[in-house]
């Protein structure tokens, strides 16, 4: 009983926010044109998703973010394992990784535009670039911080260097790898949405938000923002669920 009521707690915040929103509209704190009531917004969201462009744009952004994350993971996970398995190798490239990890990925747009043109390739590759560095850093640290005792235990049982890597270090790094994947997918979404707004885009959630704002279609704009929020939240949740399924021992 207690558990049930506690599980409902997060809903209070949602109800509170909507109530506040209604109140703001009702007392006209903001110009009604700038802040439409929640019902109108959700209606715009429903219509946009089912009949309008929002649904297609949503899927386009999902596609780009997923592709970028997959590419980033495919490059960064093996590379991270390689770098992390030798502290010397990692230390020698640590500065370069940290430097580019600290460089705003959006600053790389012009460079990638020159390399890949104005199409999808640029958006996806910049997002993949940003996500890859985050994943790489986390995987490498996960491998490097594998418990020394566990590695020693495997060696004492006669495990070869390769077996230690596959049977111990890889699994030891999984929790940290998932931290990297969750941060990576969030960053990829940010970069994709920004790219969709500004660099010659015709579709995607970023484009939808931008276009609605240009047309002063406020309910549509809010609808697109919420759709982006829902997407970000769902991606994070998805990775958390995969993590709980595959890394059941994390934190225990």
């Amino acid at each position, binding site marked *: 009983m207690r558990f049930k009521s506690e599980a409902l707690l997060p809903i209070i915040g949602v109800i509170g926010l909507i109530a506040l929103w209604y109140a703001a509209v009702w007392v006209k704190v903001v110009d009604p044109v700038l802040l439409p009531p929640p019902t109108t917004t959700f209606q715009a969201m429903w219509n946009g998703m089912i009949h309008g462009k929002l649904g297609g744009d949503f899927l386009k952004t999902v596609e780009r973010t997923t592709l970028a994350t997959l590419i980033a993971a495919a490059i960064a996970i093996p590379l991270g394992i390689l770098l992390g398995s030798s502290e010397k190798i990692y230390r020698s490239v640590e500065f370069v990784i940290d430097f580019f990890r600290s460089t705003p990925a959006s600053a790389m747009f012009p460079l990638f535009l020159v390399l890949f043109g104005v199409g999808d390739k640029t958006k996806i590759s910049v997002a993949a670039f940003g996500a890859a560095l985050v994943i790489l850093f986390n995987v490498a640290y996960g491998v490097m911080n594998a418990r020394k005792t566990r590695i020693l235990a495997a060696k*004492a049982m006669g495990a070869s260097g390769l077996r230690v890597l596959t049977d111990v270090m890889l699994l030891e790094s999984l929790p940290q790898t998932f931290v990297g994947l969750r941060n990576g997918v969030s960053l990829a979404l940010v970069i994709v949405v920004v790219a969709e707004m500004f660099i010659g885009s015709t579709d995607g959630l970023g484009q939808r938000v931008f276009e609605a704002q240009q047309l002063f279609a406020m309910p549509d704009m809010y609808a697109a923002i919420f759709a982006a929020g829902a997407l970000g939240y769902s991606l994070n949740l998805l990775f958390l669920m995969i993590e709980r399924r595959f890394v*059941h021992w994390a934190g225990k």
Partner: protein
Amino acid sequence: MNMDRATAMLAPDSRTIPAPTDQRPNTRPHVTVRGLSKRFNDAVIYDKFDLDIPRGKLVSVFGPNGCGKSTLINMIAGLVPADAGQILFDGQTINEITFGYVFQNYREALFPWLRAIENIEYPLKLKNLPKRERHARVERLVNQLGVKIDLNLYPYQMSGGQQQLVSIMRAVVVDPEILFLDEPFSALDYEMTLFMRDQLQRLFVKTGTTTMLVSHDLEEAVYLADNILLLSRGPARVVDFVSYDAPRLRSDATLSDAEFVRTKAHCLEVFQQEVRKG
């Protein structure tokens, strides 16, 4: 690991390991340590250290803090490289023999992604034993020890004592020629420690495996041992190699037995002298 040896060890007829009493008298030492030297930075831990470990005996290693008790068994087990010296097991190096090692920190030594039974089977998997053989071996060990815990659980679902029992099973499932235990019970509560001492003792009586146990608890060191190796402060020397041959299985009554009390008092005296010197 030499495969022929592994298969020979697993052959059905060699499965029943003779109790120590049935063994032909073999007075040659099992382990010989000669000229062992080790330094950490400026501290000389071992300098031309010699030691013989008798076969089929349980040797407790005891000494002042920081004298290098764990370092000694880690060097003998090949987990920490020695700067100089030679360690042989019946003339063979550590890489040629099968040994078991139990760490103090079971939480960090077990693999949390594997079930307890998979943890125990892991060293057998490294030796490429087929699945059926692995199961059979674990089952035999479970019966031998009278283990009543659910081995399908993950380590983190078990109590500390159960986890350490799994660690010990993982170390002995390969039928090691020598077993190393580094303060195996010091992370357990007293009740569990008593239970685990008993488990270890039963295992030792059944297998007669040469065993080296590092302990910081003198009572435990004497209670479990055939020999207590008393070390000095660094560079460590063998101060005394005390025999204690009360019959096994020993019990609570042993703790108040005159011989036990006398042996423990002697070890304590030697230990105190060494501490005062430091």
